[in-house]
């Protein structure tokens, strides 16, 4: 076991992938000499060379578009999009090309491209640096969408994503980059939880709280606080946003009878809506209360001095848990 920050765990995971597969490569803005604006790729160019860790021109569509070409040539590019709000210039290449090529070619073409995106708020940034665009990609067939939440998860998941033959949109909770955690870097990757599975972080009996990314930790803290009120909260880290691991979700909600979904992205038409619909269909006779959602408002991401109001925090999560019990 080694104590690593989430950022370092990702770095170690990518280093493993670069060592294991000569076709794996890293590309993006400032990922080489600088090591990325969050230093996630620190030192990789020095050790693997400029051909494998590539500082690109400043053009997100170009990053993803050329990554597609490299993948067609047999490479496994890992693209870094510097911030969540900068992924939109690449949306056409992701949605119209990357996601569809396997289908259009009736399986003849595979595009093992990973697109890493630091996402979410809470770091006091200027606009376009705190967004949660995951649902745009979860809504796009052909993509796998995942979010890691702690160092151990990050270490395994980034390696699994790079090894995956499908395109993977890989969300990293940027305000947790500096969180430290124990990582077993010696554990075989085959023993890690599969990339498309959710993880029960804290077991509980009274209510299921589902989240992903940065808010997993907040939900765990809320569960501890709720214990003082005599409520047993089960916290599930979704990890995979597309596909959703409904098996794990429904097994839990069928037992607890209550479900709260928590994310930073706007509640309206967010992932919580999809989960609520599916839980209602599949756990209807077990539910004691409607599925509740806690998330961002139907507003653009606000200026930094307002983000504490916008972002779900421990109290808003507990409030939703309370409301769930009011039914």
């Amino acid at each position, binding site marked *: 076991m080694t104590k690593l920050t989430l950022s370092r765990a990702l770095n170690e995971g990518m280093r493993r992938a670069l060592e294991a597969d000569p076709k794996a490569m890293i590309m993006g803005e400032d990922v080489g000499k600088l090591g990325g604006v969050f230093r996630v790729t620190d030192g990789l160019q020095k050790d693997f060379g400029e*051909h494998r860790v590539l500082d690109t*021109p400043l053009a997100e*569509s170009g990053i993803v578009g050329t990554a597609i*070409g490299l993948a*067609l040539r047999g490479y496994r590019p890992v693209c870094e999009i510097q911030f969540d709000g900068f992924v939109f210039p690449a949306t*056409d290449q992701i949605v119209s090309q990357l996601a569809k090529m*396997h289908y259009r070619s009736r399986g003849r073409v595979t595009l093992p491209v990973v697109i890493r995106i630091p996402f979410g708020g809470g770091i006091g940034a200027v606009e376009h640096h705190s967004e949660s665009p995951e649902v745009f990609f979860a809504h796009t067939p052909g993509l796998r969408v995942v979010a890691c939440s702690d160092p151990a998860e990050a270490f395994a998941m980034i390696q699994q994503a790079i090894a995956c*033959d499908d395109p993977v949109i890989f969300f990293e909770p940027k305000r947790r980059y500096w969180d430290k955690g124990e990582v077993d870097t010696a554990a075989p990757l085959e023993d890690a939880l599969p990339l498309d599975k959710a993880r029960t972080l804290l077991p509980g009996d009274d209510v299921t709280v589902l989240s992903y990314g940065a808010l997993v930790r907040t939900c765990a803290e809320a569960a501890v606080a709720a214990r003082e009120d005599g409520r047993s909260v089960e916290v599930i880290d979704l990890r995979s946003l597309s596909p959703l691991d*409904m098996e794990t979700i429904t097994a839990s909600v069928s037992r607890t009878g209550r479900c709260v979904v928590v994310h930073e992205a706007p509640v309206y038409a967010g992932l919580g809506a999809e989960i609520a619909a599916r839980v209602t269909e599949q756990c209807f006779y077990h539910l004691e209360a409607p599925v509740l959602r806690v998330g961002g408002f139907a507003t653009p991401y606000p200026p930094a001095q307002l983000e504490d109001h916008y972002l779900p925090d421990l109290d808003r999560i507990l409030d939703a848990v309370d409301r769930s019990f009011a039914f």
Partner: protein
Amino acid sequence: MTVQNGGATTVAPQDSELIQLLTPEGERNDNPDYPLGDVDIKGMYRDMVMVRRLDTEAIALQRQGELGIWASLLGQEAAQIGSGRALSPKDMAFPSYREHGVAWCRGLDPVRVLELFRGVTSGAWDPEEHKFHLYTIVIGDQTLHATGYAMGIQRDTAEDEAVIVYFGDGATSQGDVSEAFAWASVFNAPVVFFCQNNQYAISAPQERQSRIPLYQRSRGFGFPGVRVDGNDVLACYAVTKQALRAAREGQGPTLIEAFTYRMGAHTTTDDPTRYRLASELEAWRLRDPIERVRSYLARTGQANAAFFEQVDAEAKELGARIRAACRELPDPPPMTVFDHVYSGANAILDAERAEYQAYLDGFEEAAR
């Protein structure tokens, strides 16, 4: 030649900036900068006749309801056959959606292309088998794929390979094309940008896309651009051959603007009479890419009447074959809608597949 068209003006390029090796009258005009070498002109003629026949047949099939839509290549045969024949077997081509002539040069059965326009596949040929990527319909996207592929060639140190990417005059306004130019330039990628300027992006004339001739666009990105008579198969061949050689030799990208004309509609849903004059089409008919080669071959005695009759017979045969094959293309089985979204299992999709199968089975049970 100046032709008025609905407020815009199509100006034929100055002779000084246009590479032309065979005049519209069928006169050879060799250029020491673009040596032709040992070139199979009769083969080029045959290819152009064949793909024009394919085009005529496909339009007819669309009119008969056998194809949903067709994007005609009429008038662009020389640009496509000339450049397509310049490729070596290992070179990779990235088409847009009108490159039926290049597909032909890459040995792709035209029926595979018809499948796409009939709606039975999304054009599911094997790109690596033919070194011919899938058609790309979102304008300009493929220029980045080609550039990335070329960057892969650099990493493989495969010095005998290059990439060519096809796009149109309208595409030059797309951001992705500018990004591809920038990337190819700074990485010195072995890619040839082959722009068929057919004068129209559906209804928008080329003047709506650019104030400068398109081939000059590359200059600001730091690599050469050349304008070639896109209706001259010899010039398209020689210029493309040279650009591919330069790419393979490590000299980086070239932009080729093939100055041509879309003689037909944008697609079978389009009505060009709403935005251009018949006189313009007539003027371009005099520059027909096939006629000038025929004149040249006949006048110089390189081909006789028997040759032309033979080619016409082969074209007729091709037409009959693809007409029959197109009509016989089966609709894909319903459950294939779920195939190949992902390379492995996907719980959400797999559940939908099972549900829809059960739904369909319900009808069969009810009918029993």
